[in-house]
């Protein structure tokens, strides 16, 4: 049965994904920054059938703990088959425009922390020669827009980093999955008005589960975001820069 490390395990999308693995008896190592939340998620996954659930409290920006975290997860589950990186924030774009300090912190949460984790995970998975590295990026990383380019550029960094990593790790039979959700109704987006493009986290989780099982490279979730983003990316920059997006 699968042994899975999840960073940002208290995220709505991560929880829904973890439930699918728990139901088939997987073992999970959950990382998050709030111990009470972690405990609630861990208990839930145990009842749903997880063989084993361990937790660790950590802020994703504690870079110097990343290497030890991976070793600890490996030791406690007796190996690792999959790592899912799911944490993220929704930066206040307006506030970032007047504060580089805030921008840097948001970049750390959404890009640097992921890149740090992936650096260690890549070496460890390359060494073992199997497994899946799955990361939740976003459609927002496909093109910069005035309304959220701090978030978008952080996700773009993650997506491009993963592309390179996939190319590097292909030879070692390590599967690298980039997940690009569209609009998902989760705490992160609680303040936004919801329309017909929105989906529940369970829908995205099912897509992540399938993509991990079938070794997909990049998935847009739900699929129609692939079409939407192709259209958005096809708009010439000359025109795009005039649009209010």
């Amino acid at each position: 049965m699968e042994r899975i490390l999840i960073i940002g395990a208290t995220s709505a999308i991560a929880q829904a994904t973890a439930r699918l693995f728990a139901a088939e008896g997987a073992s999970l190592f959950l990382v998050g920054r709030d111990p009470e939340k972690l405990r609630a998620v861990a208990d839930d996954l145990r009842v749903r059938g997880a063989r084993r659930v361990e937790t660790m409290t950590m802020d994703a920006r504690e870079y110097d703990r990343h290497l030890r975290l991976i070793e600890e997860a490996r030791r406690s589950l007796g190996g690792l088959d999959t790592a899912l990186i799911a944490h993220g924030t929704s930066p206040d774009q307006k506030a970032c425009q007047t504060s580089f300090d805030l921008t840097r912190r948001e970049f750390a949460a959404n890009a640097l922390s992921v890149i740090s984790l992936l650096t260690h995970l890549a070496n460890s998975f390359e060494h073992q020669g199997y497994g899946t590295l799955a990361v939740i990026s976003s459609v927002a990383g496909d093109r910069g827009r005035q309304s959220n380019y701090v978030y978008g550029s952080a996700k773009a960094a993650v997506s491009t980093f993963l592309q390179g990593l996939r190319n590097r790790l292909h030879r070692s039979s390590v599967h690298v999955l980039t997940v690009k959700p569209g609009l998902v109704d989760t705490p992160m987006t609680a303040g936004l008005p919801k329309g017909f493009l929105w989906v529940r986290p369970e829908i995205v989780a099912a897509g992540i589960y399938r993509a991990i099982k079938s070794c997909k490279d990049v998935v847009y979730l739900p699929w129609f975001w692939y079409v939407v983003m192709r259209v958005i990316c096809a708009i010439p920059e000359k025109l795009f820069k005039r649009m209010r997006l």
Partner: protein
Amino acid sequence: MVGRYESWGRYPRVRQSAVRLIWRHLSLPVSRDPHRSYLPFGNGRSYGDTCLNDGGILLDARGLDRFIAFDPEEGVLRCEAGVLLSQILDLVVPKGWFLPVLPGTKFVTLGGAIASDVHGKNHSREGTFGRHVRRFELLRSSGERRICSPGENPDWFRGTIGGLGLTGVILWAEIALRRIQSQNVISEAVPAPNLERLFEQLLDSSRNFEYVAAWIDCLARGENLGRGLLFRGNHAGAGSPALQRKSRRGFRVPLDFPVSPVNEVTVRLFNTLVYLAHEKLSSPTVTDYDVFLFELDRIEGSNRLYGPGGFLQYHCVVPLECGKPVVEGMLRLTFRQGMPSSLGVLKVFGALPSPGLLSFPRPGISFALDFPSPGPKVMRLLEEFDGIVSSAGGVVYPAKDARMAPAAFKAYYPQWEALEALRDPKFSSTFWRRVTKE
């Protein structure tokens, strides 16, 4: 949540805002406007306004959807209050356990099942849902948390079961399950050509069958008055064959009908076809519990068939001995007023006492009728129903109500002031303001 906040009958329409509760260890959100009241919201399967809070804030509990502990030896489950009964069944049925009480839809939350103290088709055997609740945690707007059980905070335990969400938010609950040998039910449909026969069947079946409910053709008149079909069943024993589970999205109502397709002509046609289809067939069949218990879940969004105006359900219980005359009187009244009901359901409530302060079930005959388009004519008819029901010593179900007058409510539930005393000072609902008005 994706989607709007409305009740099952989609009447009344109110203006309210909502916040989602996600973590049980966190306190309630602080509202900027101290005058706006809170009300927990489950899955909106209440028909009327017990789950609505006009001008206030709904606390959407569906984010509290985690299991906490399950003891497969003892059959005791602890989980957060926003878990749906359907999700509990998916977890426990494969392990040989079952929920002792299930309403006609499995898409209700644990919190909603407790707050309405719901009943099933097996009331005679298992009583109400609240009887199987061992304890729960209640969060008040003051931030205070109370563990409630028959032994700890018993007043709060009693007040919160059937308490319509007014005593605080139920965060999690521990419930006792029952063993089943198979996930099948052996069931049969028995036709009855008139009310006399239907009542005989209903009372007779309650002795040998766990699940019993009768559908009445509310358009049949004259010598056919009260004709209907009796559905009855028992859990199958060990060794009952595993059935192929059909994918349950039978049919989905995709859009809002500008004009309701439910009218006297279509209902008459439907009722006649249903009756004729079952008129002969009555040999027992083996069905999955899901098919037998949740007939109404087969059409997703069936409430939208009633069109944008919504609909009302009138659900009452009257003492056994008044059952037949009351049902007959109500049916005749619908004809006289030219407002026949589109759907009528009869059940028997047994003697097991309900644990809640404001619980609806009590021994007798339970009768529920649907009425499309809640206009003044229907309102007058239902007021006349109240006259019949109260003089028979019956009561009306708050979870289905959107219209009863304060005087009627206070007469049905004279203990309402005890619930008022337990109500969280910051909690209220459209229903509560309406029925407690001076």
